[in-house]
């Protein structure tokens, strides 16, 4: 973003070209995808290899550190990566700057709210009484 007439020549072009600016979103989408590759496969494999999918078994699993910690990371990373992805879709199809900003901001709020809710539920399970 140009900082206006008072900025230097360099300041005016910063962030406008392929100058290691603007690539953060692209990189963050890919780094979070690598994390989800591990965490997602962990989640599916855990659900398949648990002795059952009943209330007691799942509570016990999510109360153990090796259940609760990767699940917390999965919640955070999946909401983060999902928001990154939806932002790309919005930027592709919603060109009017006001609508684009409004929709991206709405998605940000929904994603943070959803992630906070999921983490609250997980914390309640992990730190609550045994089932």
């Amino acid at each position, binding site marked *: 973003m140009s900082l206006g007439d008072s900025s230097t020549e360099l300041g005016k072009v910063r962030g406008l070209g392929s100058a290691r600016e603007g690539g953060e979103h692209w990189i963050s989408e890919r780094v979070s995808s690598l994390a989800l590759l591990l965490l997602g496969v962990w989640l599916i494999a855990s659900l398949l290899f648990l002795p059952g*999918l009943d209330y007691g078994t*799942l509570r016990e699993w999510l109360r153990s550190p090796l259940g609760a910690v990767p699940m917390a990371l999965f*919640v955070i990373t999946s909401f983060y990566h999902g928001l990154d992805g939806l932002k790309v879709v919005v930027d592709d199809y919603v060109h009017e700057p006001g609508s684009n900003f409004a929709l991206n901001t709405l998605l940000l709020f929904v994603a943070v709210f959803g992630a906070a*809710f999921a983490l609250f539920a997980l914390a309640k*399970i992990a730190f609550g009484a045994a089932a």
Partner: protein
Amino acid sequence: MAEQRARPLSPHLGIWRWGPGMAASIFHRISGGALTVAGLAVLTWWLLALAKGADAYGDFAAIAQTWVGVVVLIGLTWAFFQHLFSGIRHLVMDTGQNFDLKPNKASAVSTFVGSVVVTAAIWFYLLGVAK
């Protein structure tokens, strides 16, 4: 000065046909959107039900085991593996590889074969063993 002629534009959205490459691309976006909207909603609902208690989890499990629930969960499983496999393909292509036509087409087809085979294997296992 030469007469101003209409500049040739990229065909962009108007001209395309179905092929493995474009199908892998569009299904990457569709599966990602479905996972973010429906997948994260189910994940959050599942954790909240587990946090609330055995009765709430029983309600969740009952809905999940209706045919609509099973179809949604099978769809999410497929979306997860389709997005995972085409995501890996994207990461490979990000390194500048897999752009020759035949290998590129083969990798696009393999994302669909892989996602269908893994989804089928998981659900044959779940529906055959867990019930």
